[in-house]
């Protein structure tokens, strides 16, 4: 499915550019995309190093295990394949907390760390484990309490009440997250013999 979407977007883009006489745009876009990829990755290396360093400190001090045990009962139900004090569970909880607080640049390092830990417990190295699917469903539909960026945009556009969309945002994400978690639960239970 990913291969198909990737090819479709690329091919449709090139065909549209050709038909509208802007084929040279494709060259510019492609080069810019490659440059942007490096920029994003370099930026990420900095924040990743910072958060992974802090994460290692927390691990060595036994804090990650403590957090995992504290919130384990809540998250354990979502991840029945993980042990209650699994390091993956700690990273998952840190990622979700960062998402909820809207700390986007901290969420990614914790998320990638969680994937690394989940992969260690995965018995089929090139196929996603059920725990990974649950984690990504949770991650991509996670509630953000303060959508700071969009509030900033609204403020700049002279909104009478820039923060009025916080409530609607929480309700909309809440619906998406609930459905994602329930459907994931149903899939996992249907597949288990």
């Amino acid at each position, binding site marked *: 499915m990913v291969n198909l979407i*990737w090819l479709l*977007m*690329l091919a*449709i*883009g*090139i065909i549209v*550019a050709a038909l509208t006489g*802007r084929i040279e*745009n*494709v060259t510019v*876009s*492609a080069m810019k*995309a*490659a440059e942007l*990829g490096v920029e*994003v990755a*370099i930026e*990420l*290396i900095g924040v*990743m190093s910072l958060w*992974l*360093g*802090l994460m290692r*400190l927390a*691990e*060595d001090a036994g*804090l990650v295990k403590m957090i995992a045990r504290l919130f384990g009962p809540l998250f354990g139900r979502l991840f029945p394949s993980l042990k209650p004090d699994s390091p993956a569970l700690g990273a998952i909880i840190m990622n979700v907390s960062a998402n909820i*607080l809207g*700390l986007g640049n901290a969420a990614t*390092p914790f998320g*990638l760390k969680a*994937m*690394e830990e989940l992969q260690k417990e995965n018995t089929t*190295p*090139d*196929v*996603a484990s059920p725990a*990974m699917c649950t984690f*990504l*469903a949770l*991650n*991509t*539909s*996670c509630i*953000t309490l303060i*959508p700071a960026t969009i509030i900033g*945009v*609204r403020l700049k556009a002279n909104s009478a*009440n820039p923060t009025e969309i916080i*409530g*609607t*945002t929480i*309700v*909309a*994400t809440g*619906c998406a*997250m609930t*459905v994602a978690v329930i*459907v994931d639960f149903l*899939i996992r239970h249907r597949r288990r013999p």
Partner: protein
Amino acid sequence: MNVIAEISRWAIPLLLLLIPVLAFLRKVPVYESFVAGAEDGFKTGVRILPFLIGMLLSIRVFVDSGALEIVSHWLQPLFGRLGLDPNFAAIIPLAIMRPLSGSGALGVATQLINQYGPDSYIGRLASTLQGSTDTTFFVLTVYFGSVGIKKYRYALKLGLLADLIGLIASVWIVTKTFY
């Protein structure tokens, strides 16, 4: 709401203080331990680079060519058939862009908010939608790519389902709250 904003403001400085202090009290060599962990940051960054470039390539070519607008235009009649106001169709580019790219979606949302006004129906809907779903496609390819997973199983469909629910819920709650 101010309480939550304050928590967001204090969260990082407090983590930066509390974790090293607690680690120190537990006799962890704090500086060495931090550096050892930070080393992984570089490896991870390099590992996800090809996935970032691959995704950005196809997204940028698709958007910059004007294909996004054309596909959105095609989908417009669908809104009328669903019994919705055809004016809502202005939201389609954002709905398509949201799962693909965070910065791309923010660009589309900003443009919609400025064009229709932040307190218009489209402005509020764009704000809600931007804040309520994540860049599913992007997160999945980068996260799975970073650990070498090739078969995503049902993860992508599940993520896109959540995005669709987020879209429907946004239209519903914005209409219900403000109109």
